[in-house]
């Protein structure tokens, strides 16, 4: 296999990881519809969810073109099963209370912002362009979730306790945000991917934790599951069963 073909295959995997993570997070935001703690948050969460879904669609479109097997973006989103999904594990964790959603989103947003920043320099112009567009949205997402980390961290005893619990529970899944595998390393070397953002992620998380008055846990250790390679927690199956129910029940339908 030529280097170009290897890169192409790796790139499809890489795009699916980005797309699936965005998609799964957007789905979790959909679950908040009508359940947010304030009307302003209904608007804000739907807004962030929309951004992520839009980004997912862009990555899926590109992945579908590269795969060139007649399958479109909708197929990639709605017809792949849990072992084929490539999202980060933290994305599929249940929405929980607002502290869980805030912590989850904050960990992701810091990572996402760094990755998209890196991708704006990608030698692949399509990726660089989409990353630049996504980065504007992600900059707002990161600011928003960072502000909520401060509000909940410094707000009341209850909010501090809930946020601390959420952080403790979610922390193990942050390993994936600070680690890269061969595919990511290969694409980073080729000047296409963003590479490892672990150090910058830890620094930014530490900064916000200090301001929020939260104890920073030890760096998360190697984890036994690996969402980027299709080994998920038990939550993803249910999320996909719901999200994909119509396209699977009516495979010949046009919506």
């Amino acid at each position, binding site marked *: 296999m030529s280097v170009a073909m290897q890169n192409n295959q790796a790139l499809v995997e890489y795009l699916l990881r980005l797309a699936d993570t965005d998609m799964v997070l957007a789905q979790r935001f959909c679950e908040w*519809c*009508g359940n947010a703690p304030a009307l302003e948050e209904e608007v804000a969460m739907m807004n962030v969810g929309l951004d992520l879904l839009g980004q997912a669609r862009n990555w899926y479109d590109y992945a579908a073109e590269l795969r060139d097997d007649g399958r479109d973006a909708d197929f990639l*989103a709605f017809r792949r099963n849990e072992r084929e999904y490539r999202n980060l594990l933290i994305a599929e964790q249940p929405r929980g209370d*607002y502290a869980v959603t805030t912590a989850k989103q904050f960990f992701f947003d810091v990572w996402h912002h760094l990755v998209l920043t890196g991708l704006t320099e990608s030698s692949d112009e399509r990726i660089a362009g989409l990353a630049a567009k996504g980065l504007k949205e992600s900059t707002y997402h990161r600011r928003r979730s960072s502000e909520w980390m401060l*509000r909940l961290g410094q707000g009341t005893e209850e909010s501090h306790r809930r946020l601390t619990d959420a952080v403790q529970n979610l922390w193990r899944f942050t390993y994936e945000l600070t680690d890269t595998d061969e595919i990511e390393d290969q694409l980073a070397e080729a000047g296409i991917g963003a590479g490892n953002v672990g150090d910058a992620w830890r620094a930014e998380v530490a900064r916000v934790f200090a301001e929020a008055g939260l104890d920073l846990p030890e760096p998360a250790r190697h984890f036994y599951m690996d969402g980027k390679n299709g080994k998920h927690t038990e939550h993803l199956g249910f999320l996909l069963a*719901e999200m994909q129910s*119509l396209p699977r029940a009516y495979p010949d*339908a046009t919506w």
Partner: protein
Amino acid sequence: MYAQQVDTGSKGLKSLDEMSPEERHFQEKVNAETKIEPKNWMPDGYRKTLIRQISQHAHSEIVGMLPEGNWLTRAPSLKRKLQLMAKIQDEAGHGLYLYSAMETLGADRDDEIDKLHRGEVKFSSIFTYPTLTWADMGAIGWLVDGAAIVNQVPLQRCSYGPYARAMIRVCKEESFHQRQGYEILLTMMREGTDEQKAMVQDAINRFWWPSLMMFGPSDADSPNSAQSMAWKIKRHGNDDLRQRFLDQTVPQLEFLGCTAPDPDLKWNEETGHYDFGEIQWQEFFDVLKGHSPCGVERIQQRKNAIDEGQWVRDAAVAYADKQKANAA
């Protein structure tokens, strides 16, 4: 409509001669189509009527997110999911916008929402119906948003400035939602399978009559309607608006290739309007009283969201207070 059966407290219209000087000045302004603004004097009844109407309208926008939220996690394609999320986001925005307009009248958003959760005030009857298939997302966009627009277009000229201006923006977005809803149904009818076509017809069968009921019963003898019209809050009678909606909707129904669940529906050459069958008003009154498939659940979900979010809002307030104290 999104605001139905709004009580004006009126027992009959006063003539200009019977009015106090302030009332007369107010009514003359209204008659001259000068907008009433928040700081202007206004009769107590006018203020209360508007608070009732705008809050009911706002509640309906927010409760109206729930039947759509029921399908948001199951939207069948990326495009449809994006559209529905954007629509729901617009509705939350309309709610916020309307509550702000209401607050210019001295009402408090949290108080009015509490009243909704205690069952003391209503939201639109249409949102007490369940959404059973994806086609319902199309039917709601087309019929429900369509009916809302027919009602809201005249509200853009409502005598109360902040409400009229809110309606201008809301109408623009609702028109977009209506076209999207129709396009959902058209796609299923033109490109869909037989099962999908049956889904569309079923959705229309279920939402047809409730959409016509949205305009409320005939207001020929209602003192509330007469008062609202005199104040130029309301511009047209319920039956007129219903007829307008029906006349524009039936050709769209035919273009879809679907039928209405009304054997009496037919074009009347003489009147230049569609005739239609008798509306079962008992259902409407039952639904408003909470005897409906989802009315209780809708309010319960809203109440839970606000109750469970209390600690979040408390934290935000505590944090803002600390920031202020630190800055001082």
